[in-house]
């Protein structure tokens, strides 16, 4: 294989860089440089660990000081009060905050509404509670903890060098973890959670588990960093440790660097730490601080998404790799080589028995029985509020069932989390397309293929994603962000994502709404092509022409019950069906 310089140069540079920095204390520079660089490493580790949950998954935390502080106190208490050797305290300093995060996450992540600012405030509140507990119990008690008697292992020739080395190891490990996460299933899942958590779950991402893992990693790293920092500071007080400006600076660093990138926070942290040290002289301290504030304001206005995305954009322009403008008009569908329509089988793929769903006082589904056969296209119709979308939502696991059972391939799924259902071969689309807005078309489809389908090597998944992109006529738009697509293309992106999961059962929620007649024809052809591949389809639709044209059978829902079921033309001629569609008064 030909080794290309452009690919291996960064690796080489990284290895040399790590080597040089690792051995720097040997050079016996003035201790201040070790000390200053330690602080840079410290902030890099802290802001990078923050970004694992908050930047990647979008769960914005203002509570990073809590985990960092717990780590500091864990090390301080163990080493200063119980004489545990310093290095042995570090794993505990990481473990306690990680467990704390798991505990908090186990409660908070179950509540869908605790996102955004509510999550931020909750973490902030946790910080205050922990700080007050530490302040008022013998952990600190108010007098602070003095670490002067704790021996520091002589890793390097000087004590500051040893602290430097520990800070450096943590920094490199944190960056390695962030890199690994960003390039793994976990990272992909977290990015999807950032953009649309419900959709991520429906595409097979185990959102709850991923968030807990990210939270625990984030908190654990912060704790370990705190453990080392306790030794650096030497004297801990609650007010100094749980200082509100710590999380604010962490956020600032991550955002200025670019919080969706694994190395963005490192850039932000290095920049801001240096900036804060630029004005330390007694004469100019005040004006310097104002200047720091001003530079930060300008940086935020100028680079709202951070340095990394800005540089990437700039690089892309420089290389001339600009995204192609979206093509106008209807995307022609390549005539897929259609195998002859397979006959509808006898085997029941989806079995719904007495399914009911209640929201407070509203009975959205009141006991629905429905069998869908393998290879069948079932049209699901009914007036607004009849429960069609709710049925889709309970089958796909977005809502747990209030009563009854739902089985796919004979396996009960009524109370299984949505991502499990997705893995059992159920895929869905959304009436209003919900693509992951910060992912390209290819990444959107790749995610669905990764989490929906069976485990396969990356290359295979990519090939498959490209196949479905081509199948839905989106070829050439692989690197376009969803914002660059029109409604028609976004609907097809929904389909591509659903198909990439290789579903046994495909739930389509009004794929045709909002399309013009030519686009509708196009879409109908596509649905046929999908069925031809062997999928079973349940689709909700208002457009009767399409329903009649596509369906093998039609199910009519009304007021949460199955009102009619049968062959398309018969059902549509049923006077009862006509009356619920046109209103009772009119029918009477």
């Amino acid at each position, binding site marked *: 294989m030909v080794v290309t310089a452009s690919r291996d140069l960064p690796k080489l540079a990284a290895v040399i860089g790590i080597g040089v920095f690792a051995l720097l204390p040997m050079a016996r520079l003035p201790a201040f440089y070790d000390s200053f660089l330690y602080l840079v490493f410290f902030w890099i580790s802290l802001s990078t660990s923050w970004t694992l949950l908050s930047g990647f998954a979008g769960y914005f935390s203002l509570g990073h000081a809590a985990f960092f502080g717990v780590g500091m106190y864990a090390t301080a208490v163990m080493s200063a009060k119980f004489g545990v050797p310093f290095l042995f305290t570090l794993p505990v300093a990481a473990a306690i905050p990680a467990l704390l995060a798991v505990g908090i996450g186990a409660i908070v992540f179950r509540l869908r509404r605790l996102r955004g600012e509510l999550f931020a405030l909750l973490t902030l509140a946790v910080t205050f509670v922990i700080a007050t507990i530490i302040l008022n119990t013998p952990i600190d008690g108010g007098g602070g903890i003095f670490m*002067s008697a704790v021996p520091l292992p002589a890793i390097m020739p*000087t*004590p500051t060098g040893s602290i430097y080395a520990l800070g450096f190891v943590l920094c490199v490990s944190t960056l390695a973890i962030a890199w690994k996460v960003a390039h793994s299933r976990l990272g992909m899942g977290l990015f999807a959670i950032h953009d649309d958590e419900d959709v991520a779950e429906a595409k097979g991402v185990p959102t709850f588990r991923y968030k807990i893992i990210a939270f625990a990693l984030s908190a654990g790293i912060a704790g370990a960093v705190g453990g080392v*920092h306790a030794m650096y500071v030497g004297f801990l007080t609650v007010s100094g440790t749980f200082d509100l400006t710590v999380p604010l600076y962490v956020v600032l660093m991550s955002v200025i660097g670019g919080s969706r990138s694994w190395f963005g926070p490192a850039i932000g942290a290095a920049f801001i730490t240096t900036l804060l040290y630029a004005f330390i002289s*007694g004469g100019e301290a005040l004006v310097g601080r104002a200047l720091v504030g001003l530079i930060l304001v300008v940086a935020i206005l100028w680079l709202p998404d951070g340095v990394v995305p800005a540089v990437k954009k700039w690089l892309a322009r420089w290389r001339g790799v600009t995204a192609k403008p979206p093509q106008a008009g209807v995307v022609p569908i390549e005539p897929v080589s259609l195998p002859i329509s397979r006959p509808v089988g006898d085997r029941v793929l989806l079995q719904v028995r007495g399914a009911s769903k209640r929201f407070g006082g509203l009975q959205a589904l009141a006991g629905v029985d429905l069998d869908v056969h393998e290879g069948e296209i079932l049209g699901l119709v009914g007036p607004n509020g009849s429960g069609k979308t709710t049925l889709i939502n309970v089958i796909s696991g977005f809502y747990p069932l209030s009563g009854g059972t739902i089985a796919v391939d004979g396996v009960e799924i009524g109370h299984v989390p949505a991502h499990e259902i997705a893995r059992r071969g159920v895929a869905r689309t959304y009436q209003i397309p919900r693509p992951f807005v910060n992912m390209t078309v290819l990444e959107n489809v790749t995610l669905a293929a990764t989490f929906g389908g069976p485990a396969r090597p990356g290359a295979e998944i990519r090939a498959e994603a490209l196949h479905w992109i081509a199948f839905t006529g989106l070829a050439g738009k692989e690197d376009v962000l969803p914002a660059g697509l029109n409604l028609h293309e976004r609907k097809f992106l929904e389909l591509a994502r659903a198909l990439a999961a290789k579903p046994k059962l495909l739930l389509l929620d009004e794929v045709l709404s909002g399309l013009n007649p030519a686009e509708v024809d196009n879409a109908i052809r596509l649905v046929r092509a999908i069925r031809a591949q062997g999928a079973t389809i349940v689709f909700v639709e208002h457009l009767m022409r399409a329903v009649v044209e596509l369906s093998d059978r039609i199910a009519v829902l009304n007021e949460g019950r199955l009102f009619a079921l049968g062959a398309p033309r018969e059902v549509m001629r049923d006077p009862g069906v006509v009356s619920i569609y046109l209103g009772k008064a009119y029918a009477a």
Partner: protein
Amino acid sequence: MIYPVGALRRRGVLAGMVGATATLGAPAIVRAAPSGKPVRVGGTLSLTGFLAQTAVIHKIASEMMVEEINGRNGLLGRPVEYILLDDQSKPETARSLYEKLITVDKVDLIQGPYATAPILAAMGVAQRYGKVMIQSSMGIPKLQTYDRAFPATPFGSEPNVTYPNVILDAMATFPTPPKTMVVLTSKFPSAQFMAQGMKEQAEKRGVKVLLYLEYESGNRDFGAIAARIKEANPDLLWVGSLGLESNLLLEALRKLDYSPKNSFHLYPAPGPLALSPDGDKALCSTFLEPDEPFMSRPGMKRLAAEFKEKATKANLPYSTIDAQACGMISEWQILEAAVNGAGSLDDEKIAAWLKKNRVTTVYGSMRFDGPYNHGDAAQLIKQVQNKEWKVVWPKEFAAPGVKLIAS
């Protein structure tokens, strides 16, 4: 003068310092300005951040003292150059900046920062490089574990034992000495340390402590605490307060139509409490006030006048020289005496000299040979009388005609 001038000069000559010889034959009063390569003295103060309230006072006092020392004979006949950095009220910054001062700027000597946390952070650095560090504001002497760290303020080695007894002694002279007290304190380490001592000593001497309460440093509302104090109605209210906490507490008490029978305040902002309508007769800790007998101490009158001028110019609301500013003055006086006394910039020699000699400072004669390098305790009591702080206890430090008044 307060300094062993002759000895200094002789050593100066022996050390071959430029400029020292020039002053040898000069009359005692007219001194040649120090000359030669400046002696660089580095230090940090919390010029920004949450400890910044007092930093500006220390900065003024420091600059004043550098001028003063340079106006005399400098250090070893060389002028002093003061390198001041801003530790932003953070101990980790203090640590890195002391490393910068010592390893990059290569200062000859260091001065301590302000407040316990930055001091301890700086002390660790000083210890690694064997530097002498003089500090003025660490209220917990036992934490000063480094044998070349010296206090510039006469807390004594166990202020948590000695000072409460000073207070109780003063109270014992009242017509009706307090039998009950409430100890209320901020959870600021040095205040809490003293409060616990106060409680212990009071109980030892038979004063009943009705309530011992701790509140978070920076507490915003004192309504409920005031209600508890009113209900306890102690003979003495002891408050381990910082900043304006005492003002807020006294106002909260007044709102409940209650004035404490006697109240003592540990480290309040002096100006606002003296001027507060509720502050009358309030007692407070101090080490000196610009009054007799302190004003008769060498150089004190001039320093007080100069401080007032500079503080007013810096727009400080309370421009009177106080124990806070004097801590810094004392730091420089000790450094000057020790360097010139040891005849060397060598930290080992300076430290050794300090352990063997007494230094006359604004706080009086100080020694450094006790536990944690502390000497005698000289914490006094002052009282607000007619909107002014007056030292009232021990009696020998009260200005002529001033008495401790029971309220």
